[in-house]
């Protein structure tokens, strides 16, 4: 690790992202658009802060007695004919779905957008069991055809130019298309329509469950989520164990905040709330509805008071759009399923021994914009600081920087040592850098500077320390008030 605590891997991914003009502009444009949309929605909705307070409280309440809340959900959902399964980890979750697919003799699973499915790598598990897993959200389908990973949790394919999308579709269909959005979306509509009707299995995520009514809710704009939860005979919903509110009233707050925080919409085109499979006399709807409740690291996070609040997340992506780091490098630089500030917090918690995830706490400016944007007020920046502290305690980080920090900590505790040390540092700086830039050979061959300057521009050494200037200012201020 270098002085900023990021490995060469991360830096290479970030450099790669920064080198691609389209990606850089597209990520910026997308995050700007979503952020403006959210700001507009906040201005229009006079009660926004009150809704935030209410949802922040209800999410935390549900998490604080999650076992009891889940019991109510399971009891009431079962009464509607929902079959609930529990998975301790990703492997178990995949095994449950694969086993259901086998039992149904399923050959094609049509999928709605689900980040949990990405997290547990369900598609790979299904393919290994000879079940075709087909993403049907337009963005996710493009990602699947390209063999990539989503780069944003709600707009997975922001990083791809339309010409590349056209090429993917042309290869897929063996036809010629134009670059127009309507033409490309129309191709997806036509191709996927047949698949919806043919699929044996529909798989979705779960934006939120409602304990009071035993319901599973799906928010979507395209309508593919409705297709896969209506047409196939069996519907499986994957649910992170924390994705639950207690009452319908809590759910109303969510309906108001999730779309506004994600895209600035008042509500998504579809809010689809399911209370079990089709009833006996109904003409359509799935014959079976299975809900797989997944832990996969969440109970570890729940046990840790410092990070428990992050389980209140509603996966809107507002923190990604607000983050100066995310909106500069995009999602792929993080190298994880969940990018951005929320990813930097939850990814290391899901797998605590993973060095690559641990470093993400450093991919942040700690500006707090994520906290301001978060509809449920998760103090993400505090958590990032705390994760950095944990990293240092566990000896992660650059040795020379850690040594420097230890020396600095001692020095700062004693005023005259601090002042003297500062004077020496300024003298050294002026000696080597003069009034201009630091010479390269100094940066490259001085141990501490070498690490610090790799991704940063070192400032010109000041002539006088701030604390000396401050003393002068204070004296002038005194004179000013004397003369009045």
């Amino acid at each position, binding site marked *: 690790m270098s002085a900023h605590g990021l490995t060469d891997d991360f830096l290479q991914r970030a450099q790669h992202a920064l080198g691609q003009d389209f990606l850089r502009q597209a990520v910026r444009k997308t995050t700007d658009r979503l952020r403006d949309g959210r700001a507009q929605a906040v201005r229009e909705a006079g009660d926004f802060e009150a809704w935030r307070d209410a949802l922040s409280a209800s999410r935390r309440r549900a998490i604080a007695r999650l076992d009891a809340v889940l*019991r*109510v959900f399971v009891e009431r959902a079962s009464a509607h004919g929902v079959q609930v399964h529990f998975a301790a980890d990703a492997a178990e979750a995949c095994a449950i779905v694969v086993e259901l697919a086998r039992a149904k003799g399923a050959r094609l699973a049509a999928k709605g957008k689900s980040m949990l499915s990405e997290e547990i790598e369900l598609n790979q598990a299904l393919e290994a069991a000879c079940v075709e897993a087909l993403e049907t959200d337009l963005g996710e389908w493009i990602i699947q055809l390209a063999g990539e990973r989503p780069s944003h949790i709600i707009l997975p394919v922001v990083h791809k130019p339309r010409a590349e999308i056209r090429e993917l579709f042309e290869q897929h269909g063996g036809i010629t298309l134009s670059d127009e959005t309507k033409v490309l979306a129309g191709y997806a509509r036509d191709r996927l329509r047949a698949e919806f009707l043919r699929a044996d299995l529909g798989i979705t995520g779960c934006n939120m469950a409602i304990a009071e009514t*035993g319901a599973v809710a799906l928010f979507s704009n395209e309508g593919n989520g409705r297709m896969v939860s*209506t047409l196939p005979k069996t519907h499986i919903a994957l649910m992170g164990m924390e994705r639950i509110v207690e009452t319908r009233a809590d759910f*109303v707050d969510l309906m108001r905040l999730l779309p506004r925080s994600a895209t600035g919409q008042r509500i998504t085109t*579809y809010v689809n709330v399911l209370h079990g499979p089709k009833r006996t006399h109904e*003409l*359509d709807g799935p014959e079976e509805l299975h809900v797989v409740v997944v832990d996969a690291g969440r*109970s570890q996070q729940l046990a840790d008071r410092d990070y428990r609040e992050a389980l209140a997340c509603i996966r809107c992506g507002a923190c990604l759009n607000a983050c100066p780091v995310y909106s500069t490098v995009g999602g792929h630089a993080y190298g994880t399923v969940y990018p951005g500030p929320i990813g930097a917090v939850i990814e290391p918690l899901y797998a605590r021994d993973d060095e690559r995830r641990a470093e993400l706490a450093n991919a942040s400016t700690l500006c707090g914009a994520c906290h301001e944007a978060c509809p449920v007020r998760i103090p993400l920046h505090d958590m990032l600081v705390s994760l950095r502290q944990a990293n240092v305690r566990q000896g992660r980080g650059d040795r020379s920087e850690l040594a420097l920090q230890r020396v600095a900590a001692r020095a700062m505790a004693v005023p005259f040592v601090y002042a003297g040390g500062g004077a020496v540092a300024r003298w050294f700086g002026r000696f080597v850098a003069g009034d201009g830039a630091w010479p390269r050979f100094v940066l490259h061959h001085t141990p501490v500077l070498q690490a610090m300057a790799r991704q940063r521009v070192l400032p010109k050494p000041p002539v006088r320390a701030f604390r000396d200037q401050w003393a002068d200012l204070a004296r002038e201020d005194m004179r000013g008030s004397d003369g009045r």
Partner: protein
Amino acid sequence: MDAESFYARIASALGGPSPALHLPPALKVAAVTATATERRAWAHLASERLRSVGGSAECVSRSQLAARVQELVGASPTVRVADALLPAEVLSVLGQATACTAVDAHTWREACAAATWGVTDADAWIAETGSVLLCAQRDRPRATSLLPRHHLVIVPLERVIPSLEGALNALVDTPSQWLLVTGPSRTSDIENDLTIGVHGPAVLHVLVVDEETA
């Protein structure tokens, strides 16, 4: 993992099992009472909000209704909800349409996949967002509003309500599915360029029937 071990893991993470949660079974709340003038104001707001997301709506009198439906749907292949849910005069102009009560599940799906229009009523139309509330039931199958390219909603003025809370309270029992539809299907996945009509209907049109309108 079995349910009890799963709960036990959560309980241990929380530092002990939580006391049982007593949530009263979902309460039925009285429907919103309001004057026709209030409902008209809500309908006006609902139309505005629906239009802002690419949907459309208009207010018609009982006497204009049949002609308007005829104009919109014409002779296009159409699927519709059961007789009981639509005004009688609409049924007469939708003579060619496939009613969900007249066919088996297989024929119904084929008819929906081939239809240009799906005609439904609605449990509520919500001013706050312009959303239409549809609860699945035998007389109102889900695919009516999903597979056809155009979705026509015919809703009486008495079912226009101000807010989302009202919609949740309007639910009778627990249907297998309840659904809010707010505008046509949309996506911005390709270069942030908004496109209408991806998987769901590309057109959502609401006819609100006001008995007193001349």
